[in-house]
């Protein structure tokens, strides 16, 4: 049971915190190098972001961040082990050291950053909360949802945003909260709730999992900012840097036109100084991060750049067909912007 898992995680946290006498910077990196794989916390099944295909391989935008880290660290993107976590379990699992990094469509908020002892390393998907309703209700705007019963996943920012939205608009609602998104979807289908609310990306993903997706429609309103990104524990800056720059390498690669197809060629021939620095031809930027010289080459070769990953998992090349929108590069009208390597 989930509860058992949470409780165990809490005991593990308590035990770990009680037994270890000091926290050491760099401890996570050393431990990861020693065991030879990255333990990555992902969702309990969200198409496009982190889910297992019919062969049991994990795929998705969030999974690609973990794979990029493994590629940078070990030169092998497959050296990742995954822990599927519910929204309720995720932070305890990270705090207790059960996972090294949490890459699980987690919203960056001030209180999570400050009081949970966590650090958000960046944003790999800019999202916003929306509503999914049955067409039969004839609702065309979230403003018409007064008195509705709303299905929500427990322990998320979504729970708080929904309350804020209904309160701000002087409407009432009844929340029904479930541990997993599958339970919420089942409830929506059975009519237990009128509306399912979640991040828009999740709504598209859940819609295609429903029995008859065409009967459901995502309402136009976006009621919150949901910057989703990978998370690590406080107090280990080396590890924080590696997670952060694994993601930035993918974004920079897209900006510089480096793809999985041309990366090896470019790593030998490029005249662009930015690309030369990223791909390890110039300078010791990998070493400074405690990574091999060809860290970015391995990331792009094995995982692809950000655009490739986006397209393959959630964009045009996937079932979800989500537009780049806010997630386009900054020079393309979006928000994705990575600091330079130099």
């Amino acid at each position, binding site marked *: *049971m*989930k*509860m058992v898992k*949470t*409780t165990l*995680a*809490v005991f593990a*946290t*308590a035990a770990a*915190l*009680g*037994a*270890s*006498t*000091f*926290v050491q910077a760099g401890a996570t990196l050393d431990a990861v190098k020693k065991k030879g794989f990255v333990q990555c916390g992902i969702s309990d099944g969200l198409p496009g972001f982190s889910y297992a295909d019919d062969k049991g391989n994990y795929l998705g935008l969030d999974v690609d961040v973990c794979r990029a880290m493994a590629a940078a660290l070990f030169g092998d993107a497959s050296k990742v082990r995954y822990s599927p976590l519910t*929204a*309720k379990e995720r*932070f*305890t699992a990270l*705090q207790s050291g059960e996972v090294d990094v949490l890459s699980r469509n987690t919203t960056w908020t001030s*209180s*999570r950053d*400050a*009081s*949970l*002892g966590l650090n958000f390393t960046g944003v790999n998907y800019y999202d916003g909360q929306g509503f999914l309703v049955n067409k039969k*209700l004839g609702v065309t705007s979230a403003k018409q*949802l*007064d*008195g*509705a*019963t709303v299905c929500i996943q*427990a*322990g*998320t920012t979504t*729970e*708080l945003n*929904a*309350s*804020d939205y*209904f*309160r701000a608009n002087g409407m009432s*609602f*009844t*929340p*029904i*909260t*479930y*541990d997993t998104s599958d*339970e919420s979807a*089942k*409830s929506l289908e*059975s*009519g*237990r709730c*009128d509306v399912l609310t979640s991040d828009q990306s999740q709504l598209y993903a859940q819609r295609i999992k429903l029995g008859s997706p065409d009967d459901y429609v995502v309402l136009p309103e976006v009621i919150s900012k949901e910057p989703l990104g990978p998370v690590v*524990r*406080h*107090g280990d800056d080396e590890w924080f840097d590696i997670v952060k720059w694994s993601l930035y390498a993918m974004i920079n690669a897209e900006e510089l036109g480096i793809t999985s197809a041309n990366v090896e060629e470019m790593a030998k021939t490029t005249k662009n100084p930015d690309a030369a620095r990223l791909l390890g031809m110039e300078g010791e930027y990998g070493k400074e991060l405690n990574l091999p010289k060809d860290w970015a080459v391995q990331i792009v070769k094995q995982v692809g750049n950000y655009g490739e990953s986006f397209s393959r998992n959630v964009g045009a090349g996937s079932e979800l067909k989500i537009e780049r929108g806010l997630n386009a590069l900054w020079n393309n009208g979006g928000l994705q912007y990575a600091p330079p390597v130099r």
Partner: protein
Amino acid sequence: MQTAAKAPRLKGSIWTDPKARAWIFQLVAIVVVVALGWFLYNNTMINLEKRGITTGFAFLNNTAGFGIAQHLVEYTETDSYGRVFLIGLLNTLLVSVIGIVMATLLGFILGIARLAPNWLISRLATVYIETFRNIPPLLQILFWYFAVMLSLPGPRQSLGIFDNFYLNSRGLYIPAPGVSQVFGLFLAALAVSIVIIVVLARWARARREATGQIFPVVLTSIGILLLVPGLAILVAGSPVEWTAPKLTGFNFTGGWVLIPELIALTLALTMYTAAFIAEIVRAGIQSVSHGQTEAASSLGLPPGRTLRLVIIPQALRVIIPPLTSQYLNLAKNSSLAAAIGYPEMVSLFAGTVLNQTGQAIEVIAITMSVYLAISISISMLMNWYNKRIALIER
């Protein structure tokens, strides 16, 4: 021991004194346990602080900011986590109390039915018991919730009963009672009938002790209870005004609603625990030897009185201790509600609140203390009752 303690102690040989030695060992043990506890606590605090994780119970005063489906006391999103805790606690107690009462009733009926001379009744009871106590409670909860409650039609196709009760996938909607103007008169009538019954019972008892004649107190009391307040209603009108639920917009409004999570959980826990209680009741009744029944018959007691005055009081002594365990199990099993989203202690407090605040250690500690407190209360109550009905040897 006596001689050893009295023996003159040699100076400096405290180890040769068994009494002193025992004291020293126990002191050392206590010191070690306390030191270990302090070490663990202190280390946890230091490390939590080092990792920048907030500690302490101040979060209970912070604004919760999320909605709750079922709250027995007033609640809005702007209330504190402390209030959320209270709501979770009340929801847990609600399920536990309803479950315990219903499981006890059903369990006693089934237990007696299993011993019934009628072949069909006893076999039906056996089948029920063997089915329900051998399926894990979580599966039963999921069955009642997903397979039964959520398969009901939506609000607009509700199953209406007398145009006042509506059953749909959102729950059971029932008319809500409200106090009307003549409620005082009704209460007065009720009080009068209770006084009459008390007087009657005393008179009947005195007469029985004096003459041995029996007066049917229970039947007469029911008659009085129906007659006097009934007359008041006939004269003055209904003491209660009912507000029937009405379909408006998405949902029914007005009236009371029993949410499907509550119904599914209560049904599952009741039926599961009743199967165990039935077996306990059967064992208790069978533990009273048949000689007792024969003795009662030879004294001329009719079968009903034999059961009530001879068998059940003796059976209860065997029934109560294991029954306590079943009550404890039921209260603790109510935490399985987290699986279907009923907002009780575990899903609300140890779930949502834990996640929104991130203070796992505090929240889990509070939750565990709550279950401990509930269980100990049930235990103490049942032990007190057990003592009261225990065989008093004279």
